[in-house]
């Protein structure tokens, strides 16, 4: 879901004249070449994403159990009513939002600090960057297992380290959510810092030197020079991470299997579709999840004016 585009700009789409704009030969060639290059990928994308999306929309209107194909019945928007009137949906929506806000906020702060370290490091730059990026290179399931073992009350080291005895981290909602958030933050902060580093690298040193000459303190330089100039990069990083975090599944599946009220919306979709094989109901949950993700993306782009062109290097 990271294909949201900023509104196109430039003469070709300028508002006033609706008549066809005559293209130069060169422009036409370029356009044709563009289609030629991107066309196959575009067709492949439509085939592998468009069809499942439409199929999910269609299926979401049926009461359809995979083990009972004969009992398939059209229920219109019935599945959506079931979902939206069930307290479980709203509870899991709350848990998902909480995890998203907490992890993305923590990742932003930590990611920014790490980006600064990577940007300013004078020695061992490559080694440092590699070290910081290692967690991101680890498969989520593996990292979730690692953290689950670390927090385990029988063989984990966390309890020993903090003198917590036999405290069962996965035995309560809040403590279980803490472990999930810790695992998520550890895993994806490097991604955040990588995006922020790109933004940081775009700030000309002249700005900072000028600020220094004018007597700005380090904090003032961060607040008045670095942050304003990085706004676009920060918003893009936040957008990408929020969309990812909202769909969290792996860590929770491994660490709590959804017990203790730690289930998220992706889990709800998984349980209806895969465990219960209620394909219709599960598709409806997935459609709602997709709509929520689109709303988040639109909110970032429209309300917070996130400029994705900056990330594509167009400016």
């Amino acid at each position, binding site marked *: 879901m990271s294909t949201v585009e900023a509104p196109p700009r430039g003469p070709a789409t300028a508002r006033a004249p609706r008549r066809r704009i005559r293209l130069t030969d060169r422009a036409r060639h370029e356009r044709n070449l563009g289609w030629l290059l991107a066309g196959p990928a575009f067709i492949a994308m439509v085939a592998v994403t468009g069809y499942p999306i439409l199929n999910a929309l269609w299926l979401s209107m049926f009461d359809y159990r*995979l*083990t*009972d194909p004969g009992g398939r019945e059209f229920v219109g928007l019935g599945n959506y009513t*079931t979902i939206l009137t069930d307290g479980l949906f709203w509870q899991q929506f709350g848990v998902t939002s909480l995890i998203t806000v907490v992890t993305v906020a923590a990742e932003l702060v930590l990611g920014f600090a790490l980006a600064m370290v990577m940007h300013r490091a004078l020695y061992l730059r490559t080694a440092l960057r590699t070290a910081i990026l290692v967690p991101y290179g680890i498969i989520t399931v593996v990292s979730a297992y690692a953290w689950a073992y670390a927090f385990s009350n*029988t063989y984990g080291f966390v309890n020993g380290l903090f003198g917590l005895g036999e405290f069962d981290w996965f035995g309560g909602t809040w403590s279980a959510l803490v472990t999930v958030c810790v695992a998520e933050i550890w895993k994806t902060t490097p991604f955040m810092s990588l995006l922020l580093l790109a933004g940081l690298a775009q700030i000309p040193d002249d700005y900072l030197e000028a600020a220094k000459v004018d007597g700005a303190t380090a904090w003032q330089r961060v607040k008045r020079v670095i942050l304003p100039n990085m706004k676009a990069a920060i918003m893009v990083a936040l957008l990408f991470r929020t969309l990812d975090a909202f769909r969290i599944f792996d860590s929770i599946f491994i660490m709590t299997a959804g017990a203790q009220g730690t289930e998220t919306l992706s889990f*709800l979709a998984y349980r*209806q579709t895969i465990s219960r094989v209620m394909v219709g109901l599960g598709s409806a949950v997935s459609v709602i999840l997709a709509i929520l993700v689109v709303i988040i993306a639109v909110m970032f782009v429209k309300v917070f004016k996130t400029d994705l062109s900056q990330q594509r290097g167009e400016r």
Partner: protein
Amino acid sequence: MVLEKKPRRWACGSALVLFASVLTGCGGEDGGSTTLTYYIADAAQEDVATRCAAESGGAYSFNIQRLPNTAAGGREQLLRRLAAEDRSMDIVSVDPPFMAEFANAGFLRAFTDQERQEFSTGVLDGPLVQSTFRDTLWSAPLYGNTQLLWYRKSVLREAGVDPSAGPVTWDQLIEGATRAGVTLAAQGRRNESLMVWVNALVSSAGGSILESGAENLPADEVKGGLDTPAGEVATRIMRDLAVSPAAPAGFSTAGEEDSRSAFQAPDGGFMVNWPYVWAAFDAAIEEGSLPADFKDDVGWAAYPRVDAGTESAAPSGGLGLSISSFSRKPDLAVEAIRCLANAQSQKDFMKTAGNPAALASVFDDPEIRDLFPMADQIREGLDAATPRPVSPYYGDVTGSIQTAFHPPDSLAPGATPREGNELLEAVLSNRRLI
């Protein structure tokens, strides 16, 4: 950008390889007409399969595929593949409670009357009942399973209960373990093992999770049997144990292996668990994580009762071998199952994996009696074991129970059975989510 020669050639080459692999992927999943794809749930099944293939003299060989470790994971994988009519599956290992769901959906090939006769002769009642659905045999029982009460002999005097002297109740055990300052381990984790516990308690109290006849009803007409005195007493026992000092740390997240490690700990006292633990103690002794004389202190008895005057209904588990409806080689698969599930295979399987045979005769084998001193208890338990509810919608049933009865320490005997029952019926009729 101008492409250099080399990358272009490389790209063409890789495209060809990709294309070729797609073609072969479509054509050659069989790997030969005598190769049977066998989905196993336990690593020890592979050794048995290797022996059978060798003994067949080339009549068949196996392509072994391992199912996920957890019962739910195994079910999901089989369900997904069978629903997609995967023709590459021949023999599948099915956990008995899931069999009805698969059979009802038409995913399994029914055994013929003659085959049924063959695969049920000498099989203990428990494993046989759970391999049959609507009077048809859908699985050849490979092993049966039942839980026992395990205890440390050294704590009995202080606890004031003696399971070796006669049947004991859950209440006596909770009280005794608390008095002796030891733990009573059970499986409070929210997965299939919680369902096993709830079912055993409700059945021991004389009730059943689903009202009788549920197996032939459409999902939205199935009625739950939890909102009853049996449901209430089961809930009370679960809650009492979970909040008592006898509950091991992390009770609400403890599965079978956590229970075993709680039992092995210095304050371990009692545990309900499957007989595999006996073989697992050996492994732990060999590893050095348990003292060599640990097993001398371990005793076993029948599953605890809910009410002193009523027989307990021990949990029933096991594994059956079924043939996929979509298999191209059902006859060869039957032939292979004749070896995979025969007495020799069941004995080998019991020796290596510690899972009890389904055939009564295996329990009379001197070698087995030597390795499993509790063989008689297991055999009796298998015969008396109460299967989990038989339902074509078992996934919904177990999911609802796991949601309603977890975490055990916050259950309310006055409310949980009613709420659980409502959830179960609402989920089955597609009105609620789990």
